[in-house]
């Protein structure tokens, strides 16, 4: 800001400064660099992946001309078990980890809403997982705490007289271990979203419910939960789209194993497309993940449309 003294000396309009640009020019000058970055680093590569999926391009076949093969790589994505198993695993992971973190997030957010003392401490502390690297937390929970012979969890189970759990060598438990790691990490997001959602709820329905003599449980089921629908759906959608991309915790905790029991689509794209060099097939598999994610979002939004509309 200018001091009053300098104002008078200045020419009244910016146009007289020589380099003045109109707002119409500024609008585009400010916007275009970001558009260039997004087109160059995101949209162009996505289009290139689509093109690669229609060729017989191989990463390590130097000098061999790349030829266009049409949709030849695509049927394998839905028939070959090397892609079907990761697709199934990824869907199981999403359906396991997202509702788990939602339920944790809802319980904690409701609890936070009840208390006044220590509220700020809990709120800040509960955000901490979002800053921690997924690789680091996968190491600690997945590889150390859940270690089958040296880990404290099995040790505590034994001390309590319970049988040990094969956290990483049993196919089902390996998936549950991944879900545990993800829930530890991502419930924080649900807590943040739902706490904010609870705080912005209107007061009138609650006053009416008290007048009608509704119990706490009834109030929750018939007022709180329906009113939270828009925030819940947004949170579930964001978390699900993120969970579909899972790769780092899988790579660290189970490496996709035992066998291929926890191999995710992204890990399969890396293993088969990048490491083994079959990028054409990998590109098709990557696009199948995009298609699964879009189909899932559409189903989620359609299925919850009524609840969201009722709430607003």
């Amino acid at each position: 800001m200018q001091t009053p003294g300098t104002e008078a000396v200045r020419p009244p309009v910016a146009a007289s400064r020589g380099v003045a640009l109109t707002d119409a020019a500024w609008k585009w000058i400010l916007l275009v660099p970001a558009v260039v970055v997004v087109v160059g680093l995101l949209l162009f590569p996505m289009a290139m992946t689509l093109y690669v999926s229609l060729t017989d391009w191989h990463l390590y076949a130097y000098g061999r001309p790349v030829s266009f093969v049409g949709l030849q790589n695509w049927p394998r994505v839905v028939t070959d078990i090397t892609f079907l198993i990761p697709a199934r695993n990824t869907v199981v992971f999403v359906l396991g980890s997202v509702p788990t973190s939602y339920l944790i997030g809802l319980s904690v957010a409701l609890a936070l809403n009840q208390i006044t003392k220590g509220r700020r401490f809990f709120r800040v502390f509960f955000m901490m997982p979002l800053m921690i690297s997924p690789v680091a937390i996968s190491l600690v929970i997945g590889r150390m705490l859940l270690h089958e012979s040296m880990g404290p969890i099995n040790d505590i189970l034994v001390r309590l007289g319970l049988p040990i759990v094969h956290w990483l060598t049993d196919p089902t438990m390996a998936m549950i271990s991944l879900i545990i790691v993800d829930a530890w990490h991502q419930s924080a997001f649900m807590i943040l979203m739902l706490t904010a959602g609870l705080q912005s709820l209107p007061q009138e329905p609650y006053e009416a419910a008290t007048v009608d003599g509704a119990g706490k449980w009834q109030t929750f089921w018939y007022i709180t939960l329906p009113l939270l629908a828009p925030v819940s759906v947004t949170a579930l959608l964001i978390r699900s789209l993120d969970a579909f991309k899972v790769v780092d915790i899988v790579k660290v905790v189970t490496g996709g194993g035992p066998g291929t029991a926890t191999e995710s689509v992204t890990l399969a794209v890396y293993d088969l497309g990048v490491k083994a060099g079959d990028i054409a097939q990998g590109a098709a598999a990557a696009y199948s993940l995009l298609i699964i994610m879009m189909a899932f979002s559409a189903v989620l939004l359609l299925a919850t449309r009524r609840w969201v509309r009722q709430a607003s």
Partner: protein
Amino acid sequence: MKKQGRAALVVSYAVLILWTVILFFPIYWLVITSFKTAVAVSGMPTYLPWVDFQPGLHAFEYIFVSNRNMVARPFLNSTVTALSSSAVALFIGSMAGYSLARFRFGGPGSSGIAFAFLSQRMFPTAVLIIPFLLMYRDLGLLDTRQGLAIAYCGFSVPFVVWVMRDFFLGLPVEVEESAMIDGCSRLDVLTKVVLPLSAPGLVAVFILIMIGAWNEYLFSLVLTFSEAITIPLFLQIQTQTTLGTAWWNLSAISLIAVIPVVVAGLALERYITRGLTFGAIK
């Protein structure tokens, strides 16, 4: 009524304390493991320093003295790529955010354009890794910090545009208008009015994308392999060594990698909450 309220309070605190313990235990384990010896890690798990095992500083000796060069490299790589990519993405993205907040756009409108930016963030990274690998191979950018920083920048820009547009919309436009009437050019307004006012938003977004780049794994896995590896990749590679994993060293490295971002994030908690939820929280 009073009794019901007290019961709810007890249950609430029980839930909150339980979640605190669940969050705290892995952190506690990370800290104590970094002070453990090989003997204290293999065999039965040990829980309490000085009671169960004798803590030592050998892991930190390994990091800061004997293997300093090997460990320092990924830290340097992570620092350089995270800071440089975030700085550039912040500059480019907040310019676009300002443009979308202050000027009228036809067609989809500025909110439509902003949403188109945000939707880029939702696409799976799996569809990006193959072309990046092909392009970087031809451009000689594989296994370089510059290459990784460019990729991270591309990944951060959509998020910056979305969050900063939301932030600029919350700033009073009247201040800018009166400055223009006083004879300021748009550039003066941007640098002398908008920049100081938007500092909290800029810092928050910078922290968020910096944390994202610092913790990023997949691009690092695909695009780097020895010279430019970042901490997450370094940690993951170390767990796959056939010589037996040195958990105490890994714990100490993880701890050092985690502390700065957690401190930065929690210190600025007030400002970053909104960005963490993509502007869903006002």
